[in-house]
């Protein structure tokens, strides 16, 4: 699913990475624990999270994530927006809950991705 369609399905506002909205998310992973993202995340998936700190952006870069969706109408600090913009990362924000965000994207056809599918780590 294109990241532009992720934003459209959620009615999310795009904060950074407008140039990357044509990029594909091959699945989604929802977590409020970055350790879980580092342990079970897969490349080129979109992260759905209520965390809005700088470490989310770092984690996205380390894990080659397709983008980040900040849920629950969380305020994202200018520092986080600046770091995301600098890295060219697609970041968007929605007023929807994490549960609702997952449900809408799943119904729209965005799958869960097994961390071991082709992440190369078993």
């Amino acid at each position, binding site marked *: 699913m294109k990241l532009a369609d992720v934003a459209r399905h959620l009615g999310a506002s795009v904060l950074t990475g407008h140039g990357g909205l044509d990029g594909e998310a091959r699945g989604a992973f929802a977590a409020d624990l970055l*350790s879980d993202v580092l342990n079970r995340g897969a*490349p080129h998936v979109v992260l759905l999270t209520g965390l809005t700190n700088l470490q989310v952006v770092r984690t996205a*870069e380390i894990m080659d994530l397709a983008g980040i969706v900040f849920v629950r109408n969380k305020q994202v600090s200018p520092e986080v927006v600046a770091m995301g913009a600098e890295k060219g990362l697609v970041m968007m924000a929605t007023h929807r809950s994490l549960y609702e965000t997952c449900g809408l994207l799943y119904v729209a056809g965005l799958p869960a991705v097994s961390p071991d599918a082709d992440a190369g780590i078993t």
Partner: protein
Amino acid sequence: MVPPEQARLVLEFEVTGRDFAAAGNAATRIKRALEHVGFSARAVRRAAITAYEAEMNIVIHARRGTMSAYITPETVEIAAVDEGPGIPDIELAMREGFSTAPDYVREMGFGAGMGLPNMRKCADSLTVDSEVGKGTSVRAVIRNC
């Protein structure tokens, strides 16, 4: 382990305890270097995760430390050496779910006792040495395959 003199490329970064704004900078630079020299996507990924977990541990637990990467065409060795409280029981620290991280670190999304186990999963070999009151040294080797 890679004897440092055999490494083709050596990267070294200072890491400051509690500096969460800079945390992840070293791991990101190591990741970019490995991509640049043509490591496989799989090896880059495993090394990046290992380096990031190690760097976060220094920022969370230690006063200061050094992150180094010794890169050869076949392997990368990541060394995270810190001055900090040390680990009294390494076997316990390697157990998933065991953590001594304070609450504010957990609120950030870390400190779930998954760092060292995740490093062990990602690295081909992992060595942890520690002296209580002095510091901890973590060495991980990832093969480029």
